[in-house]
């Protein structure tokens, strides 16, 4: 301490509402993510590999309207896009909870007026925002660019397809986040979480391919195929007959809800001690 130590002084400001604290968490995570070199590289690479050509094509080619088929072909069959999205999800979600577990910093959050739910929503919201930069924003840009350069007058139909694009983009954005968070909550090491997330999807794709040899309906357990079928439904294009829509809906919803419930209960147990 110096000769004249600085004395403790009181803070006289106003506290924000407790529910607003999740925005603070979301903002901090988002800032941290978009400063990360790995995430930036993936976003740029992903944009160049999956969207740039489509964007150029939309601007340079002659077209009458924004068509559902073309958007489906761009989003629904894009294995490159899916692989990049899985990779981005694995990287972005890997440290969300694992880092807090490794540094034992849960206590910093939960000794404050933050609920487990708010903590998770804050973290997930930031991740969804980052994911949307690859999954939702570029397809919307392609859609808007296509509409802006269309030769026909049927803007209403194009707007409808743009809306479907937004829904498909939103699904692609959120689909992998709960699973990635779940993986991040079961290990202290973000590298394990990232590899675990990526490999899980990869294994599901392989398992689906093996079982589809016996029955094509098994393809729905592949996240890539199930998303592709879901996009077919969203864009209202012809989809294979073997798709069981009930099973597909269960898979898609379960794939998001079960990991989300798992991570919530796991954290609740860790924080409150069961």
């Amino acid at each position, binding site marked *: 301490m110096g000769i004249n130590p*600085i004395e403790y002084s009181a803070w006289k400001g106003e506290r924000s509402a407790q529910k607003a604290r999740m925005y*603070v968490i979301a903002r901090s995570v988002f800032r941290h993510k978009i400063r990360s070199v790995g995430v930036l590289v993936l976003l740029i690479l992903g944009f160049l590999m999956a969207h740039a050509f489509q964007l150029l094509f939309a601007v340079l080619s002659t077209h009458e309207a924004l068509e559902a088929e073309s958007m489906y072909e761009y989003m629904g069959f894009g294995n490159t896009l899916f692989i990049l999205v899985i990779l981005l999800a694995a990287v972005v979600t890997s440290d969300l909870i694992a880092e807090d577990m490794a*540094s034992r910093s849960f206590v910093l959050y939960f000794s404050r007026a933050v609920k487990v739910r708010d903590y998770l929503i804050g973290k997930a919201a930031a991740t969804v925002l980052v994911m949307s930069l690859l999954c939702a924003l570029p397809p919307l840009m392609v859609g808007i660019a296509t509409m802006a350069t269309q030769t026909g007058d049927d803007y209403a139909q194009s707007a409808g397809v743009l809306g479907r694009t937004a829904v498909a983009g939103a699904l692609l954005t959120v689909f992998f986040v709960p699973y990635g968070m779940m993986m991040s909550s079961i290990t202290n090491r973000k590298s394990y979480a990232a590899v675990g997330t990526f490999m899980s999807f990869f294994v599901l794709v392989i398992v689906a391919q093996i079982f589809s040899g016996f029955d094509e309906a098994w393809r729905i357990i592949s996240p890539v195929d199930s998303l592709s079928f879901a996009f077919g439904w969203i864009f209202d294009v012809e989809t294979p007959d073997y798709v069981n829509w009930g099973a597909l809906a269960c898979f898609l919803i379960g794939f998001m809800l079960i990991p989300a419930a798992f991570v919530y209960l796991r954290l609740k147990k860790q924080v409150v*001690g069961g």
Partner: protein
Amino acid sequence: MSEADKDADSKKSSEARVRLSAKDLTVRFGPVVALNGFTANIPEGVIGLLGPNGAGKSTLIKASLGLVTIHRGAISVGGLDSQTQSLRIRDDIGYMPEHDCLLPSMSSVELVSYMGQVSGMDGKDAMQRTHEVLDFVGIGEERYRLIKSYSTGMKQKVKLAQAIVHDPALLFLDEPTSGMDPNGREEMLDLVRRIGEAKKTIIVSSHILQEVERVCEHAVIISEGRLVRDGKMGTLMAGEEGLQNITVRGDAKALAEFSKALGAAFEVVRKAEEGAGQMAISVKLFGDGKKVFALARAHGVQVRSYVPDKMSLEDVYLQAFRGGGPDGH
């Protein structure tokens, strides 16, 4: 004002001074009973929370924050129930955990400001306050470095800074000097003392009794999930009532005669030759000590010290676990 009004006012003000109140608090983790009918009223001020490992100190802190499920009883902080109003309670609490809890990928400015915002401060306020508290705890330019490069002492200071950034009324410090060198310990204790001077209630959980003795005004001793003893430091450390420790000096014959005369007049509890013509005597006095000085004068011995018996906190702590003590615990 009537006597009844005065009594009511006095009762009200004494109730207002209770910061944390636990009644029959029982917390279990499976078969392990962490707190077993713990009952205490912890007042405002700087409080030492003492007890061996596994005594239930950390569980008590977690119960106050509403972070553990209470099986029986209740705990309230500032009049708010920890189970139903935990978020309101936490807004006014700062917690410095014992273990490492800092995010290594952030600088201390980023972390403390972030925690300020998570506590409800707006960004501008949080940043300004962050610099204030980092100055207060003595983190200089290093505040812009990543926390993973910090020494243990610096990390302890950052942990304290994040706990006080939102200016809480109640502060829990769990082993605040853990892993620090002697200089660092001194600085940390000085910080605790200075925060206490700002009318904050600080509950310091520590194994180092000398530190608690130095900074705390009140102590709560806990063992096996139960309150063993609590009270003001002065009361706890006061020795047996009427017991005086006297040191006298003189030649051997005079000392022997003085001792004999003292024994005839009072009850001598302890007597020890200290060499070089000096003797230490603990004597239970009745009335004032004038007679002791008169006897000393009469026998030609010099009274070198005459002090009331006082225990160290360590004595109090050990006595509490042996099951004895001045208050009959």
